[in-house]
């Protein structure tokens, strides 16, 4: 494993740990409003300063991280399930079904994700723009790459001897999928998760900054950035952007390195 992979993995872990632990030890409540302490720059009592309501930003970034990671985790769960089922079905069905299913994926992949997510949010009647609305929007906009990845992988698995053997003794496709294909797809699914993770985190930020995120006072990284955006506060914007960017970059570094580890043929191919 290269140092980049290790660094990326360590940074992802550090951010997650911060989001989990910081609110427990912080003396500040993330939603405590104190107008005397409005819009402060970092100080000893507030290491990352305060927002326009005097709320402690260091705590809010941690709590926001929890929500953002919850959104990302749930969306990734849906993306994995849908992507795996779609990709496996296409690969196993073959012929017309396969080409139709992949045409749909290709068609959707041609469109940018952000408008797709917005259309889904509107369809959910927006009053449902809660955490789960965002999760659904991001999942609908983001399952296609995983489906394509899985399909390619399963096509290769399909001709393996153990699949042929299982077919020969009369196993059904659902059983083969459960017993042989799923266990042999963990690597590719892991790569898919890590590839999508930064995209989903950014997607949450995109939606929130356009004013379509979870309503106040819920904190997410995107929502904190939106606060900074709409109240013209560079510092707050910088803090939120850093949280999003550091996490996204470390996750993709980690994903890249892991893909190399899992697929030795990839190793050293890229200079």
């Amino acid at each position: 494993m290269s140092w980049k992979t290790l660094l990326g993995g360590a940074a992802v872990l550090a951010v997650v740990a911060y989001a989990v632990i910081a609110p427990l030890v912080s003396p500040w409540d993330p939603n405590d409003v104190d107008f005397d302490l409005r819009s402060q720059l970092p100080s000893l009592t507030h290491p990352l300063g305060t927002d326009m309501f005097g709320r402690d930003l260091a705590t809010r970034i941690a709590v926001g991280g929890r929500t953002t990671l919850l959104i990302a985790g749930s969306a990734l769960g849906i993306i994995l399930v849908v992507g795996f089922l779609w990709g496996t079905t296409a690969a196993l069905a073959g012929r017309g079904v396969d080409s139709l299913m992949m045409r749909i994926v290709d068609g959707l992949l041609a469109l940018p994700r952000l408008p797709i997510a917005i259309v889904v949010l509107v369809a959910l009647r927006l009053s449902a723009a809660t955490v789960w609305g965002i999760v659904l929007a991001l999942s609908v906009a983001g399952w296609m790459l995983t489906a394509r990845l899985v399909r390619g992988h399963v096509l290769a698995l399909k001709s393996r001897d153990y699949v042929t053997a299982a077919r020969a003794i009369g196993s059904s496709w659902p059983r083969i999928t459960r017993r042989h294909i799923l266990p042999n797809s963990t690597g590719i699914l892991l790569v898919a998760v890590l590839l999508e993770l930064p995209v989903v985190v950014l997607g949450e930020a995109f939606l929130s900054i356009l004013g379509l995120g979870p309503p106040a006072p819920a904190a997410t990284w995107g929502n904190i950035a939106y606060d900074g955006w709409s109240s013209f506060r560079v510092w707050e914007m910088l803090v939120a952007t850093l949280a999003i960017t550091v996490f996204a970059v470390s996750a993709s570094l980690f994903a890249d390195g892991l893909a190399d580890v899992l697929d030795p043929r990839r190793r050293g191919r890229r200079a």
Partner: protein
Amino acid sequence: MPLGAYIARRILWTVPLILGVMLVTFALMRGAGGDPFNPPEGFGGLPESEARKLRAHYHLSEPWLVEFAYWVENVFTFEFGPSLLVRDLDVADIVRNALPVTVTLVLLAAAWAVPAGVALGVWAASNRNRIQDLLATSLAAVLLVVPVFFVVFVLREYFVLEWRIVSDGWEKTSARVLPVLALGLAPAGYVARLVRTALVDALEEDYVRTARAKGLRRQRILWVHALRNALAPLLSAAIPMIALLITGAFFVEQAFRIPGISSFFVTAAQARDYPMVMNLTVALAVVVLVANLVADVLLALVDPRILERQRR
């Protein structure tokens, strides 16, 4: 397959795609249920008489297939119909006025980002593993990684609000500089990275060695022989490029108050203005799909092997 047939086939494939997008959008909006005439708080409603008129216009009381067919007819005749929430606002006017703004913004951004990215990529590849390479790849990584919403926010905060050097909007030429600049940053980084990788590979090829052995000048080998073969990977990456530009346009237009299509799209989404959202979705999809089409045709021109493969 000759080029003409390929282009015709690609165009024919785009039509069902647009219809597919329309059908899905329509199903989502219709499936959302409820009454589009009760907007969320903060957005004014309509008097009963107006609502009845709009209901009739969009055939909202008809079966869904009829409603959909009317909509398809309206879209293909550019008669998008009125907005649900803002009176006397026709979606067709929005599309007519806002679409050119967005397309101009995106094209201008691409017009500087692609050459700049190519130059940066070539510079990096020709100085492979030297300090220049490190500088160029780091610059490309930074351009790609800094989120567009942060860039536009900071640029506007200082250049427009603080120092008042330029103004918001799209009217004045001077106001267009920052948005175009900001929108091109990430694509430039992306292009630079792609070109560098493709060039590094191409420079190892036999034909480059042959060219060198013939005694051709370094610059000529780099820009003519190697770069030509790096064009195909660049054009194949059209979809992520377009996605970067369109996504970026949302934030650029939002920050600099540019009356482009995405700013109307976001407002309509917030107000739950269904016909507006549906028609603007189609307009956006058409822009994206036409851009893909152009990239595919260019790719076939650059790499004719694609036409060969189509025969299967």
